[in-house]
């Protein structure tokens, strides 16, 4: 008998010790948030600063469980190996509880195995690679701490097809296109989606597809080949050094309209980087982007941002700055409900987060997540842990996955599609007749 009692006592003591230990490691020294991403790119800095503002606000409101939230950053230099080292540093040297990522695709893919190993709740604000969502579907248990707070790249193709049908085909009367895409996984994926859907859905025929190397500096042969196809317009897919291709489009005064995906043109700095020689193009953009009318809550975030960081680039947050800001808010709300950043409990609560930002009484932006198993009707597939996007008019069920923005020749910008968010008109450059 006494033996049994001692055993029970021992077990109880262990339990207390374990609880005390976990409690101490999780709360006693406050919560630590790690940032992983490039500290020299505009997008990386946007995410870093967006999160910083959110953390400042949370701390001003008393922190988390009465303790101030700590924020540490680790630079990836957009280098895959450095990304892995950075993740390890955050996880094992800094022992952070939550990681906010402003990494690009291959860097995120680099540290994902580490995330699975350490099981640290992680929120990506920039990487939009659908392959990662596929990994979540295939290995839910291993990947469930991962969330992607930006619409995956499959969603944008769909929006583009609608834009093609409504504006390019119906309004401009164009029925043929030549696709120009960079030789990257991103370029290939978007091209696959767009060219499959364009003809059947919008009635625009793809006459030719030209693939170019990302190191290309002289685009004149490529543009000439594109013009020679006789297509009505050029559809560009570029995520690497996109300033180069669009500025050459302007310099060479290519006599065809060009639209598509141009990642560089998503930020205000595009104009400065191209020295004003990048007008006349339009691009698909995640929201909120340049030229995007903001709801009051996001506007307030921007005001804080420009007051704090307005004199160093990026002077205006890129889309992932917003994603990081709201993402941090959500992550902590989830942590509050889950009692911390437990790798099993936190994802459950994170999935329940849903911030609906309204403008003039309409749903304008939404930060929520697709649930596991929830099927998006238009594409007929699931997007677990991806931001809840809405690609079907009237866009009242989520954030628009993307919008199309226009850079005018005078450097002004506007959203031109979808109509709900439009602030300007689609335009072709002056040298196109």
């Amino acid at each position, binding site marked *: 008998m006494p033996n049994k009692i001692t055993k029970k006592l021992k077990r109880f003591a262990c339990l207390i010790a374990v609880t005390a230990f976990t409690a101490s490691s999780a709360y006693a020294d406050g919560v630590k948030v790690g940032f992983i991403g490039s500290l020299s790119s505009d997008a990386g800095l946007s995410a870093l600063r967006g999160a910083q503002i959110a953390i400042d606000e949370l701390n001003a409101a008393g922190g988390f469980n009465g303790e101030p939230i700590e924020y540490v950053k680790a630079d990836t230099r957009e*280098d895959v190996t450095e990304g892995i080292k950075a993740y390890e540093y955050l996880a094992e*040297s800094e022992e952070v509880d939550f990681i906010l990522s402003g990494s690009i695709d291959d860097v995120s*893919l680099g*540290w994902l195995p580490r995330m*699975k*190993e350490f099981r640290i709740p992680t929120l990506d604000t920039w990487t939009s690679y659908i392959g990662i969502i596929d990994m979540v579907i295939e290995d839910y248990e291993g990947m469930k701490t991962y969330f992607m707070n930006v619409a995956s790249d499959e969603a944008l193709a769909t929006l583009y097809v609608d834009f093609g049908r409504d504006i390019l085909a119906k309004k401009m009367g164009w029925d043929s296109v030549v696709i120009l895409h960079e*030789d*990257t996984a991103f370029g290939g994926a978007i091209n696959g989606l767009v060219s499959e859907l364009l003809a059947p859905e919008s009635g625009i025929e793809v006459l030719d597809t030209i693939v170019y190397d990302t190191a290309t500096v002289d685009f004149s042969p490529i543009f000439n080949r594109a013009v020679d196809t006789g297509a009505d317009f050029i559809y560009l897919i570029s995520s690497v050094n996109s300033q180069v291709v669009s500025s050459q489009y302007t310099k060479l005064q290519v006599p065809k309209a060009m639209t598509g995906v141009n990642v560089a043109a998503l930020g205000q700095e595009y104009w400065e980087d191209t020295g004003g020689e990048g007008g006349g193009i339009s691009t698909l953009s995640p929201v909120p982007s340049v030229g995007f009318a903001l709801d009051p809550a996001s506007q307030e975030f921007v005001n804080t941002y420009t007051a704090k960081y307005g004199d160093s680039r990026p002077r205006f947050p890129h889309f992932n700055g917003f994603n990081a800001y709201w993402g941090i808010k959500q992550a902590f709300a989830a942590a509050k409900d889950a009692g911390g950043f437990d790798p099993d409990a936190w994802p459950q609560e994170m999935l329940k987060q849903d911030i609906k930002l309204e403008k003039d009484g309409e749903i304008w932006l939404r930060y929520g997540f697709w649930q596991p198993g929830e099927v998006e009707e238009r594409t007929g597939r699931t997007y677990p842990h991806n931001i809840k996007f809405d690609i079907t008019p009237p866009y009242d069920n989520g954030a628009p996955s993307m919008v199309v923005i226009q850079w005018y020749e005078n450097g002004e910008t506007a959203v031109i599609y979808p109509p709900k968010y439009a602030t300007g008109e689609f335009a072709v450059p002056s040298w196109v007749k």
Partner: protein
Amino acid sequence: MTNPTKKYLLLWAIFIAVMLLLPEFVSKGTLRTIIFANFLAIFAISWDVLSGRTGYISFGHPFLIGIGAYTSAILSYRFDMPIELSIPLAVLTTTIGGTLFFLPALRLKGSYFALVTLAFMELMYQLVQVIRPDLTGGTRGMSGIETITRGAVNNYYLSFALMVTIAISMWLLMRTRFGSALSAIGMNEESVRGSGLSTTKLKLAAFMTSAFIAGLGGAFYVHYLGSIAPRALFDINFLFTIIVSALIGGAATIIGPMFGALFLTILLEALRPILPGVERYLIYGSIALIVYMFKPQGLVVLVLDTLDKLRSIISSRS
């Protein structure tokens, strides 16, 4: 066995013992850093066997490491081959494939050789993206490659065992006539040829040894990282750390590249909390430049010189 050899063996034993006990004393984060240092040391030793000894500077080592890493990654990730099989195959591919590529280059001298090997790295970068992206994963690479073991401590022991095995084997190999012949090539190739040895055969053997280690290191490296992408390997910064590790530690030695790798890796990590941004690389590069300018023979020589000086000061006093 001669006395100096006994002394060195003792030093090796002490070194191994210290390193084996290390996980008891340092944090997991530090162990992670040392794991990278271990892999870097392997690459630097591989580079040194060829370039440090013979004076034929190779700028193409990422190419060799890349072959090893990609072969094993593709075999295990795409074809579900067990690691026990994919790693030896990768090493074999690197040794044979690398030799086939480099063979013509070995006929070139000095800087020409350097230049051609640099071109190999660029070539590989392009090829990986263009040829069969369904296998290589193209620009995004592959993620979720099988890892050999998990956790900082296990991986530390694994990488250290690999590194120290390679280091000791190379140490023994370099003490043979083969090793001295290689160093002789570095000093004066003409005279080696004059003494009736085939320098081409020697260089080829050095290259194959180098490629073997690079392939082995590359294959284990990719199964440690768990992911691979062309930008992580075929990059001037990666090349920079390999070469600078070997040289800053001390070329044509075994301890040199090991020490250099540890120095560079720890320097970079130590700067992280103070300078999280790109300033870190500026300082890190500048320190490497200054150290290298100050002592091109390497840090090991610097330490030994200082010890000698101290010893002479002490002995002159007593």
